[in-house]
């Protein structure tokens, strides 16, 4: 009888531990997804701002068609390949700001300055979302690798997440302002 109780208590303890680890994995996954959606929101905001910047620059530099077309094509990338979309937005923004350098009136216009400021702000939000996402992913991946939570991770098929990588273009992005 005593052995049976011992086994039952052991099973209960393992069950409780399993449930708590399982829940903490689920919580971490939700937080990673939440942080990931933050990146999407910031990228979409950034795209909208760059579109507005295009509209402002267009008023002064009508012949810079290639940049305007490039921006128009980026939207479809945001949902699919976020990293590529981020790179292309960086590139487009760099080109737009370089164009603005040649037009002092555009550079001094209140609308352009406002857009520049909003762009800096949204870049900062994007950076924050990326850092938060990577922080959450690091916590999830560490837990997935550590013993004994790696047993639960294996049982529930938790494979972790990939970090949001900044590639070379993003690393050498153009400073504005």
């Amino acid at each position, binding site marked *: 009888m005593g052995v049976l109780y011992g086994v039952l208590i052991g099973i209960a303890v393992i069950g409780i531990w399993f449930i708590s680890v399982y829940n903490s994995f689920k919580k971490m996954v939700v937080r990673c997804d939440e*942080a990931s959606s*933050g990146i999407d929101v910031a990228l979409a905001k950034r795209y909208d701002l760059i579109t507005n910047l295009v509209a402002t620059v267009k008023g002064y530099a009508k012949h810079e068609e290639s940049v305007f077309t490039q921006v128009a094509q980026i939207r479809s990338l945001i949902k699919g390949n976020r990293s590529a979309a981020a790179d292309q937005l960086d590139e487009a923004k760099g080109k737009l700001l370089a164009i603005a350098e040649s037009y002092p009136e555009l550079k001094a216009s209140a609308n352009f300055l*406002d857009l520049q*400021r909003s762009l*800096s*702000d949204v870049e*900062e*939000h994007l*950076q*924050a*979302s990326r*850092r*938060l996402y990577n*922080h959450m992913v690091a916590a999830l991946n560490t837990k997935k690798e550590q013993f004994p939570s790696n047993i639960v991770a294996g049982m529930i098929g938790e494979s972790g997440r990939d970090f949001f990588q900044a590639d070379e273009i993003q690393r050498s992005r153009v400073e504005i*302002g």
Partner: protein
Amino acid sequence: MDQNQIEQKVASIRRSIQFLTVTGLTCLVIGVFSFISGILSSRQTSIDGAMAAFAFLMIAAIILFVLSYMRTTQYKRIIKNEVLKSCLEKHFDNVNYKAEAGFSREEIASTELVSMGNRFHSNDYLSAYCDGVYFERSDVLVQDHRSSGKSSYTVTLFRGRWMKWEFNKNFHGVLQIRGNSSLGFRSRKPFKWASSLPNMEKLTFENPEFNKQFTCYASDSEDAYYLITPHFMEKLMKLTDDFDCPVYYEFLQGYLHIAIYNDKDAFEPKVMGFDLQGYQKEIDEDCALLHQVVEILKLDDDHFKAREEN
């Protein structure tokens, strides 16, 4: 009033304070002696005379001390209005200084940075623009006074400077950054059921040194990461090291609150051994600290938010 006139006026008030205090103390001492001699005397007439002298001298001492107190208040008011205010105007724009005013208890309590106790005092309120950045500051004292039977004790929960800076980024949540060695401050997460702040969650950042030095609670983790960039973490650590005393930071409703528990009451002029130039130097050092906050934290950077013209 120019420097010489101020010095003369201050010196004359100080002399009268010294005279009133010394005379008051003399009355007190002589009064006590008459009381003792009255008690020790065996003749009824001597007792009556000594007691009459004692009563007269006590009343005189009280009047002299009240007058001395009133002159001290006047003395401090003159120094604060003439010397302090002009020093502040030299450093800042749109200066609004009120010696008797301060932050309200409700405002300090709303930050939930400090346990509020049952005694609160705040004075030397200043609002101005420092290098184009709007700020408010005040001295704050928070104590908890308890008495049981004949014994009573007072615990000081906070004594120092409280600053409130307009922050150069838009944010919606609340972020508390608590120094891990900050005695006297609230050391734990605000209780959810007792807190008026939104649900706060403990956060860590990428910098292990920062995580070691501070404990952060935020209502919105993305907002917190937006405010606390790797560069800003370095700046906060530097600023905290420069203060060399427990410091707490809180981002709340567009402002950055900085609570510095330095156990000092700033801007208070001494009555004895007052040196005008020394006092002005102290004020300049205090103002330099405010410039330092703007400089280290780059609060005047308008890359993210347009600043209102002052």
